[in-house]
């Protein structure tokens, strides 16, 4: 009959080690995912390649006015995405750029040396894959 001692087996260690490894892999994956989980993403506004402002995504649509020595841009940010609403340049290519929802996209306004990107993906459903658009 069985004794009252607990007998661990080698496979117990293997199973526990595999589970810990899986936890570590998941952790590494999410760290790599641009901190898009856990903390809600924010809008990062770069001028001349320097981070000028960081604006958290508001729960309702908001306007952000960006005034620099190069010109004025009006940004619409909200939970659905980030879009350039106005720009006082000739081409206004940035205004025609598709709204930004993912960390791997960006809206650029070259005449104003302005770049807008997201620090993480927005949790909009079936967000389209975005391609970086460089405006002239």
């Amino acid at each position, binding site marked *: 009959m*069985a004794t009252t001692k*607990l007998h*661990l087996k080698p496979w117990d260690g293997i199973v526990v080690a595999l589970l810990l490894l899986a936890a570590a892999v998941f952790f590494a994956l999410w760290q790599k995912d641009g901190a898009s989980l856990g903390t809600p993403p924010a809008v990062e506004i770069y001028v001349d390649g320097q981070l000028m402002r960081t604006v958290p995504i508001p729960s309702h649509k908001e306007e952000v006015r960006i005034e620099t020595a190069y010109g004025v841009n009006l940004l619409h940010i909200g939970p659905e995405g980030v879009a350039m609403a106005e720009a006082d340049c000739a081409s206004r290519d940035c205004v025609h750029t598709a709204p930004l929802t993912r960390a791997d996209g960006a809206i650029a306004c070259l005449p104003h040396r302005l770049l807008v990107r997201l620090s993480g993906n927005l949790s909009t459903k079936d967000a389209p894959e975005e391609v970086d658009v460089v405006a002239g």
Partner: protein
Amino acid sequence: MRDKRTGRLVLMALFLTAAWAVGAMERLISFDFAVPGVKLGLGNVVVLTALYLFPFREVLGIALLKCVLVAMTFGSFPSLVYSVSGSLLSLLAMACLLRGLGKRLSPVGVSAAGAVFHNLGQLAAASVVMGTRYVWAYLPVLMVSGIITGVIVGIAVGFLLPRLAKIPLVRDNCPRLRHLLDDGNVV
């Protein structure tokens, strides 16, 4: 001679009651320190022990009825969704491990895997119910805490099984357990 089926019915009713009582007890112990929702998972002591004693289908019944009973007495509908999803995945994982590696694993390994899959099931349900994938950020923390609590639960089951096997009601109705213990496969 006593009816075998009656003895088995009594035994399973006792298990279901124990599962409910442990689940109820666990709600009284506040165990939330770092992450909301981290629990000791003591209910798995009963479910895992049942897996060593009864066929899978009967354990499935115990596990599901336990979820319903706990939700009816203490919980709500959302908590029922989470616990059913977690319990099912956990039970499946443990049953597969027992079937595939039962001779090479002690209850400690089986229980650790069961706890991690319980967390997986709960997070899957939470991400569907809340419509966000942000909840998956909790997974690594929950997996590590699940492994720790799972090992504790497994140790408890490891000590429990040989003692249960000495009880006549269990010995007479669960030939499965006696074979496992005689072969030295469990503990």
